[in-house]
């Protein structure tokens, strides 16, 4: 295990089917997640995020490779690992006929420490504004997800594995969740969070892994991945956009996606500003606005295989 690594994945692959019908859900994944960080795992549906998580939890078995959590093999020592982790599944299903309290007691009893865990579950439920006396079948989808979060966190695990946890939660609860994650990090605990809500990842994660078609495309710090070398530039002229400027900009190698509208021209630019400033000097520039790309745009840039932006 690398120093400080909580999750260590080496060459992990998962394929389904055989022969010509074989499909790879995950290919040769190498990844490590450090203690005390919130790691964001990004990717669209079918990218392999849930497959990775189910492999880590020993719910499915790898075709190749291995994974360790706390330095223990996820298959051979799954029971000991599960004692120290909390899990929230993307498609959360709970026992419909049981109340929140009954499920909390059940899970706590399997964990072997009913009193302490149930007390903490009550505190979490209060923070998330969840009524645990109702049957699961009578809860809204948002409240079911709150109950799922309580179950994942009620034993204060060293590692939280959360698969799309905030979908269906209202903004206020999402904010509470973000605060809880910050508190987790402050306590030196680790979170592995799969999400497609990029603003959420941007807000709470330290590092991000981007997954596409079962392959890990990049692992970067959130700061670094946000600091890619392209910007959106808006130039507002006092009068109309000078004649021929759009064509001139489109011919420049560092500028793409040029669009002109009245007195305004918008473009995506990489590299230095000097060539642009020279090009627009024919007109009277009223204002110039530079906008950093959002994580969504970076995300899409990775997916489109746009090398120049990454």
């Amino acid at each position, binding site marked *: 295990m690398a120093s400080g690594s909580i999750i260590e994945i080496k060459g992990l692959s998962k394929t389904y089917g055989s022969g010509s019908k074989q499909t790879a859900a995950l290919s040769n994944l190498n990844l490590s997640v450090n203690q005390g960080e919130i790691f964001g795992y990004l990717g669209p549906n079918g990218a392999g995020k849930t497959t990775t998580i189910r492999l880590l939890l020993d719910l499915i078995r790898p075709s190749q490779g291995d994974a360790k959590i706390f330095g223990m093999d996820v298959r051979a020592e799954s*029971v000991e690992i*599960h004692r120290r982790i909390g899990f929230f599944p993307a498609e*959360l299903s709970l026992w419909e006929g*049981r109340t929140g309290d009954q499920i909390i007691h*059940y899970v706590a009893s399997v964990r*072997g420490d009913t009193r302490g865990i149930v007390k903490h579950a009550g505190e979490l439920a209060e923070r998330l504004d969840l009524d645990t006396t109702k049957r699961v079948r009578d809860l809204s989808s948002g409240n079911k997800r709150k109950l799922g979060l309580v179950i994942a966190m009620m034993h204060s695990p060293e590692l939280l594995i959360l698969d799309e946890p905030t979908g269906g939660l209202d903004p206020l609860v999402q904010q509470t969740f973000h605060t809880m994650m910050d508190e987790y990090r402050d306590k030196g605990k680790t979170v592995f969070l799969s999400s497609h809500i990029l603003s959420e990842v941007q807000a709470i994660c330290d590092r991000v892994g981007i997954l596409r078609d079962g392959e890990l495309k990049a692992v970067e710090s959130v700061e670094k991945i946000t600091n890619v070398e392209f910007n959106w530039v808006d130039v507002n002229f006092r009068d109309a956009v000078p004649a021929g400027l759009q064509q001139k900009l489109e011919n420049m190698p560092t500028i793409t996606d040029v669009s002109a509208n009245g007195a305004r021209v918008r473009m995506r630019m990489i590299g230095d500003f000097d060539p642009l400033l020279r090009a627009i000097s024919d007109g009277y520039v009223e204002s110039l606005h530079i906008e950093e790309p959002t994580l969504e745009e970076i995300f899409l840039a990775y997916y489109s295989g746009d090398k120049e932006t990454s």
Partner: protein
Amino acid sequence: MIGSVFLETLKQTWKQMVYWGVGLAAMALLIVLMVPLFDMQSVAQLLESFPPVILAMVGIGEDLAIFTTNEGFVAIGFFGKSALIFAVYPVVMGMRISANEEDNGTSDVLLSLPIARAQVIVEKFLAYALSIVGVVVLIYLGLHVGVIAGGVELDVARLAEVTFYLIPLMVFIMAATMLIAILVRRRTVALGIVTAFVIISYMLQTIGAAAEGTVAESMGAVSFLTYYNAGEILSQGFIWPHIAGFLGLSAAMLLASLYRYEQRDIAV
């Protein structure tokens, strides 16, 4: 913690156990109360007039004499059919051991807890087996209440043997259902296979019992229902090799289920 899944399974199942037990007990009670209304000699004459295949279908073998007794009447009226009706219960419970939880996704939450897959299967199996015992006890209580309330002369000890003989039979059906569900993973497919298994077993038993001295008779030996014959139990008491066979096969299927469940992916 050991026993948590067992206790939770019982908590989630006790109502169904009571509903099934009370329903079957009411049926048993009704049959017992009907005993004084029939002249057993007429019943014997009526039975002799039926072709063997019809008698075999209601669970009556070659020993017609036993069925002209009060105990025999209860055996025909209740145990001949109740085994098939009751067979639905262990099928439902066998599906719950793995297939239902995999199908609805709760197994992901359960198996993310510090508990081994094998422990989940064993604890659920034992809890559902206990619920089968509960249903059988309620059936016996129904019979007993009928005997007392109707003042019917019945050998209660022999009736108890026929009743409690249902336990290994039902545990066997549950184990078979569990194994099939673990092998095929999907609830609907598993349910189809188990239903076919029970129906084919019933047909083989019926044909086998009706066609003595033919190939069909040996085919009947393949059916597990052949080894639950209320008339035989009434005349001979517990048939221990059959009980051992049911329990032995159940244990073997439990072991096979544990092995396969440990090896394979959990479905979503």
